[in-house]
């Protein structure tokens, strides 16, 4: 009578407890490993591994950028597992899931009840993947692994605290409505469900073998939802792209894909900002439009983009920053400096050649203007990579006389 598969039996209970213990051990280990990987941003390229695990990001970015990064293999592998074992990743690995579960537990202890909600996650996935086909994945940044990674930028820069907001939002949601994030909202969870769907249908069909075969036919409500989601995604992607055309393009890290696609493909994981050895990447506060909130922008007030460094491009999980070699970086300028002679010390007759001295490419020379009777810094756009060394060196305050400006598409970017 001691059947271990019988849950009510004595040995069955211990077996279940043992498995639960193992699962908890794995989950906590995953969380610790994820934290260690993300904290090693400046020394290693490991942080890329955390958001790269997401099949949602992998598929979304492949569709949007029509490029395949090696790191996407990780996400696709997780996706493959999800097809066979639904939500296996959520139950065993997801670090955000563990945090959300923890908050849900606290919420339930405080008497909070789960809310009834349709599966929003599925809509997020449909919208995103449909719009990704048009190059602008709308809600890719709602990926839990990206949000989890992003929170590690909290102490990085002046605006770093903002990067923890998405994670905080998820935890608050989990407290107020226990388990609702993972089961109803999380696009990564929903995507895994969708991936597992065909096999589950097939299994159901097999179980009902000999019965009515009409149940295995295409499910009309799902089809309607899919069509609706795809259409809405496409429409929103179109709107988002056209609305971004007018706002000025901000300065992006090297290798950034064109705007406005960047806004969609970037998952706001903050890996680039945390990897940057000179701390010049910080999350946007939305100065360049709300769609750009938390996307990486560059500032050269104190330092600049080192010539041989391509770290930010190597820790980007979504392909928003194309992987670059140092040579490739030189041929992909970040921007081009512009000189404001109304601020420049040279126009005052002051002695200053700081920008030229710091330029690593010797792209700045000083030309004498007989009419203005002053030297004027001239930038050789063929040599300049927009690294910002000149801007960082410029001693004028509060406004720098030489400022790197983004190069628009029109300028032959």
């Amino acid at each position: 009578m001691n059947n271990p598969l019988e849950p009510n039996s004595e040995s069955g209970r211990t077996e279940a407890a043992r498995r639960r213990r193992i699962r908890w051990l794995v989950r906590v280990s995953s969380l610790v490993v994820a934290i260690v990987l993300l904290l090693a941003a400046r020394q290693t390229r490991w942080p890329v591994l955390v958001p790269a695990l997401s099949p949602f990001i992998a598929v979304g970015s492949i569709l949007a950028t029509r490029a395949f990064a090696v790191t996407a293999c990780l996400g696709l592998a997780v996706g493959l597992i999800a097809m066979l074992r639904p939500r296996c990743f959520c139950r065993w690995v997801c670090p955000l899931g563990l945090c959300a579960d923890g908050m849900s537990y606290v919420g339930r202890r405080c008497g909070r009840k789960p809310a009834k909600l349709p599966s929003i996650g599925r809509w997020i996935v449909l919208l995103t993947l449909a719009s990704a086909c048009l190059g602008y994945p709308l809600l890719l940044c709602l990926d839990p692994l990206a949000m989890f990674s992003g929170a590690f930028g909290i102490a990085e820069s002046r605006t770093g605290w903002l990067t923890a907001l998405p994670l905080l939002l998820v935890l608050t949601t989990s407290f107020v409505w226990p388990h609702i994030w993972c089961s109803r909202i999380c696009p990564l969870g929903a995507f895994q469900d969708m991936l597992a769907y065909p096999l589950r249908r097939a299994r159901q069909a097999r179980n009902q073998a000999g019965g009515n075969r009409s149940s295995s036919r295409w499910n009309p409500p799902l089809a309607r939802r899919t069509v609706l989601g795809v259409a809405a995604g496409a429409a929103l992607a179109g709107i988002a792209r056209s609305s971004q055309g007018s706002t000025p393009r901000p300065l992006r890290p090297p290798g950034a894909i064109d705007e406005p696609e960047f806004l969609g493909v970037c998952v706001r994981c903050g890996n680039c900002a945390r990897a940057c050895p000179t701390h010049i990447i910080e999350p946007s506060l939305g100065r360049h439009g709300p769609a750009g909130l938390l996307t990486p922008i560059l500032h050269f007030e104190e330092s600049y983009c080192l010539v041989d460094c391509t770290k930010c491009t190597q820790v980007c999980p979504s392909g928003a920053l194309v992987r670059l070699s140092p040579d490739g970086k030189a041929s992909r300028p970040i921007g081009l400096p512009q000189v404001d002679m109304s601020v420049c010390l040279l126009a005052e007759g002051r002695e200053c050649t700081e920008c030229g001295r710091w330029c690593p490419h010797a792209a700045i020379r000083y030309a004498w203007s007989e009419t203005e009777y002053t030297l004027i810094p001239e930038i050789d756009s063929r040599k300049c990579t927009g690294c910002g060394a000149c801007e960082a060196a410029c001693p004028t305050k509060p406004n720098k006389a030489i400022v790197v400006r983004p190069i628009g598409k029109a300028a032959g970017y």
Partner: protein
Amino acid sequence: MDKHMNRRECLRALGLSGLTAGLGLTGAPASHAQGVGESSGFQSSVIDAHKVQDMRTAATIVDGKVIQPQRELPILHQTDVLVVGGGSAGVVAAIAARRAGASVTLVERYGHFGGLWTGGLVVLIIGHIVKGGKQVCQGIGEEMMRRLDKLDGAIIDRRPGVSPTVDAEAAKYMMVEMIEEAGVDVFLHCWGVDAIVTENTVRGVVFESKSGRQAILAKIVVDATGDGDLFAAAGAEFEHRSHNVGLVSRIGNLDRIDAEKAGQAPKPRRLGSATPVPGVNWVNLTGPEVDGLDIATLTQMEMNHRKFIWNNVQRTRQTPGYEKVYLVETAPQLGVRITRILNGLNRVRLSDLREATKFPDVVGVGGSSGATHGEWQIPYGALVPTKVDNVLAAGRCISVDMGMADLVRLVPNCFVTGHAAGVAAAVAVRDNCRPRDVDIAKVQKVLRQQEAYLG
């Protein structure tokens, strides 16, 4: 006398034994003033023709070419260390060498000390600090600043981490005091024009003055001419570079600007920066990049800049509220920045600044304008020519790459290289060795004793 002795050496021997003794020129420099002849009753007397001038041989024309006949030069003076150029590097070099125990002679082409610092009105002490505000220019340069602190109206903005501005006249006065106290022999109004060289070794300097062409013999020559005139004449390797040539001026009555009248209108440009004299600003002018050794160019620069400065002040005076602003003076010296740069045993490169290279033979630490960089070390090898012996470079012409030239030419960094060259020259004299063979540990020890900062 050695029968293999060549003509030049023979002449020098003659000069040493006969002429100097005969003319009574071996004494103190002051003794080269000429005695006056019989009084004529006016405040002017006929002076006996200077015997030096008697030795002059006019140039002549042979086959359509102007020829300077070969002639013997009188030896005005002999010394351990001869510093050519009395600018910020030369003055410090002379004082440092004298304090280190050598007999020192300083020749300067103008009538005052300080060179471009005072005569060029580059009165801003910029480049003595590094990122974070630490002052790296110590030693005799800092001693000068402390002396200026004690003088009334000599220096402003003497605070840690800030670039002070000095009064040129106060600095000239202060340097006269220091040179006299140190016991340096001085010849002003002397333009060093040629090196005296035997077998790649410098033995002294020929210079031109109102007293004609004369020679000073020295064991070690410090070339603090800024243009590297001496090491170039001696045959050392160098780089001839163009740079901006400008002219500094001072404008006055800035404390009498009518603010009400000026209102919110944009301020005129080029009002310059404050000096210790109330209401007087100094105004820099960068100027075009030209060859600072070409006399036609220098002439053109002087005239162009003069016109611009005058007209610019007139424009300022036409601005409402600024009518009383006036041009106090233009600098007596044209602002030549970089001309010749020595090819030394070592060379300070911009990469050394960025990587904060440590040199085992460090003899000074440079700062930066605007304190935008960290400390950068100056190796002794940057002062020593590759081929020629017994001459050391000091000041803006030491061995640096073009990226560093703009830092090395700043006044405090000239103090630092001057200090290093002066001490090294004195140590070489004491140890009776070539400057390239000098014991660097001894040089560093003496520099530290003289409170120089070596990192």
